[in-house]
């Protein structure tokens, strides 16, 4: 039986898939006129949103609420889809060589998402999304047993989609403020007003 929540998620997934198909068509048309681009492999975007939503429900805090977790998941997907593999990295002071960002991590993350489903079927005879939160976390504990823990890696450096999703959310100003319980809103352009006073507590709607 599919829960209303998962039906919504499946609809989202199909919409994403539809967007991807349309996007691919547009990309193919553009590429036919651009020989340099034609040499590049097509980049797949999007994720299995049912699986990803199930993952986000067990790695993101309940305090976000369902709406907040879906928003965080959508932001992660948009971020992953917007990635430009092997773009030039910021070079500044400190090193002279030009460095490049890694290849697209999303294919491995998609495979890991599928892997969670396979593992769930083998060990629990259910899909990952059909497990309760405790069972999902038990599986993740097995999968993530070798992940270092002293800090979250940058999302792009995450070796597993669960960590990437978690890290992407945790790097947001909203997550920072939620942890701090204050309206600091770091890494956001805002005026110099009130910088000398103690940051105010978050309104109840944001906690």
């Amino acid at each position, binding site marked *: 039986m599919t829960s209303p929540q998962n039906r919504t998620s499946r609809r989202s997934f199909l919409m994403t898939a539809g967007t991807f198909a349309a996007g691919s068509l547009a990309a193919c048309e553009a590429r036919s006129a651009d020989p340099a681009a034609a040499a590049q492999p097509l980049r797949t975007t999007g994720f299995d949103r049912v699986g990803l939503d199930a993952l986000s429900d067990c790695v993101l805090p309940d305090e976000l609420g369902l709406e907040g977790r879906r928003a965080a998941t959508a932001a992660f997907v948009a971020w992953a889809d917007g990635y*430009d593999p092997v773009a030039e990295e910021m070079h500044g002071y400190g090193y002279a060589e030009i460095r490049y960002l890694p290849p697209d991590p999303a294919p491995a993350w998609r495979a890991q998402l599928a892997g969670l489903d396979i593992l769930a079927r083998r060990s629990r005879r259910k899909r990952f999304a059909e497990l309760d939160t405790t069972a999902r976390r038990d599986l993740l*504990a097995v999968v993530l047993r070798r992940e270092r823990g002293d800090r979250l890696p940058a999302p792009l450096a995450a070796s597993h989609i669960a960590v990437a999703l978690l890290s992407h959310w945790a790097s947001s100003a909203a997550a920072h403020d939620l*942890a701090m319980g204050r309206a600091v809103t770091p*890494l956001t352009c805002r005026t110099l007003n009130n910088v000398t006073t103690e940051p105010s507590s978050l309104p109840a709607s944001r906690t």
Partner: protein
Amino acid sequence: MREIETDILIVGSGITAALMALRLSETTTRKITVVEAGGPSTLFADRMQARARYMAYGESPWKQDHLDDQNALGTTWGFSPSMTVGGLAMHWGGVTPRYSPEDFTLRSLYGIGDDWPFTYDELDPFYQEAEERMGVAGEQGPPALDPRGKPYPLPPLPINYNLGILQQWAANAGIAAWSNPSAKNSIARDGRAQCQRCDTCYPVCPTGAKYSPDFTWDALVAAGKVSLLTHTLVRRLQADSRTGRIMRATGNRTDPQGEPVSISARTFVLAGGFVWTPHLLLLSRDASYPEGLANRSGNVGRYLAGHRNVNAYLTLPMQLFPGINVQHSLVSKQFMRPGKQSRYLRHDLRIWESSVGSEPRLRDEHGELLLGNALLADWRNRATATNAGTARVRAYYDVLPHRESRLTLHDATQNRFGDPMPVLSFRDAPESAALRSWQEEQIRELFRRMAKVGNGKIARMENSASDLGQEHPAGGCRMGTDPATSVVDSFGRAHDHENLWVAGAPAQVSASCCNGTLTFVAVGLRTAAAIAKSG
């Protein structure tokens, strides 16, 4: 062959070049041409988007700001390969301390290093000019520690809530610390916005609150006051073997066609920074000047100077809220002006808020995986602890340059035109090398004392990358009064060529123990004043 005639040719378009060109455009009627190997990078209108992608992915906000085959080798810490209109100051942090008076008289005061051929007081008006042209926001420190002839042009960036607490802690430790001077608009000025504390001053200010040289170039070009020739690499200077005067600069366009370019001028100003300026002089060797131009002393490429640092994170029993204005800091110049000493040590001191120690983590101290509510609870406990605020402290200490601290040509590595690339090898003068371990321990001890005064502890402490190079580097064409031991005179004019001038960083004798850009520009403005007078 593209041939160009001009009165003043400036090679390079970085921050020193921009403000020298501005001054020259106001003080002479001579035709000014500026040559830049790269092109313009990210337009101002696109910087908010560039910042967003930098924040999201670490992408460079500065597209195509370098030439793939034009780079330095060796100990390049502190060097940037940027070749673009505005140079590396397109992504500088905007931090603008002055050197202290002692920097100019080290030999006289301490019996080590070398004196500069002018004093701090002589540079003061040019420091002021540099601050006014960039728009430096600063707070007057205690006059004995922070001498200056006139007030800062802009009010200081505010000491925010976190820094206010840390300032009191520093005061308890007997350290006077104040708002770090910065070329960032504390109020709207010059058509540029007030600082919006986006916290990405380095590498990109999306609002224009931080000064960058493109603002000056755009205005100068729009007003027709300079000709800016981009995508053109100057590869040689040619001197008249009889008179020593530089006759022309030659090079090539850096587009695929690579058209040769020849530029004749009355005055040549090299403003390519501490790498590309000595590099060009060495490349310009010929039968009459087999060691390169301006190199009768053999000192072109020598005495590369910089500084190193000791950095620490201190856990203190105070509640801070990291993120209010992360890139702004407190500064103290107390240790740059130590008075008489039995052993030499001078360093600056910066203090920042920090989130180190209170970031989210995947496992707790028992190794248990933290997901969902458990992760947030653990993060919240550490982020809101009233007894575990984190301060970051860092001290740059100066390193006196060895004559063998140098740039040479690496014949095996060449650009597309066959020019050997520069290789850098920084080396401490013997007196600096002998003091290094003791100096670093003194700074570590200061940090321990500061932690103790605040009833805190050192969470982490480290020295800067050891032998990769030095920070805020300068030198390579050092100034002096004796042509046998220096490359240029006290105004930056080459001893060997009356119409050749070296601008800013490469002319410096030493590099102090603080960020260098303001001094590079002030020295360059002093050179520009001399060029205008030279007729």
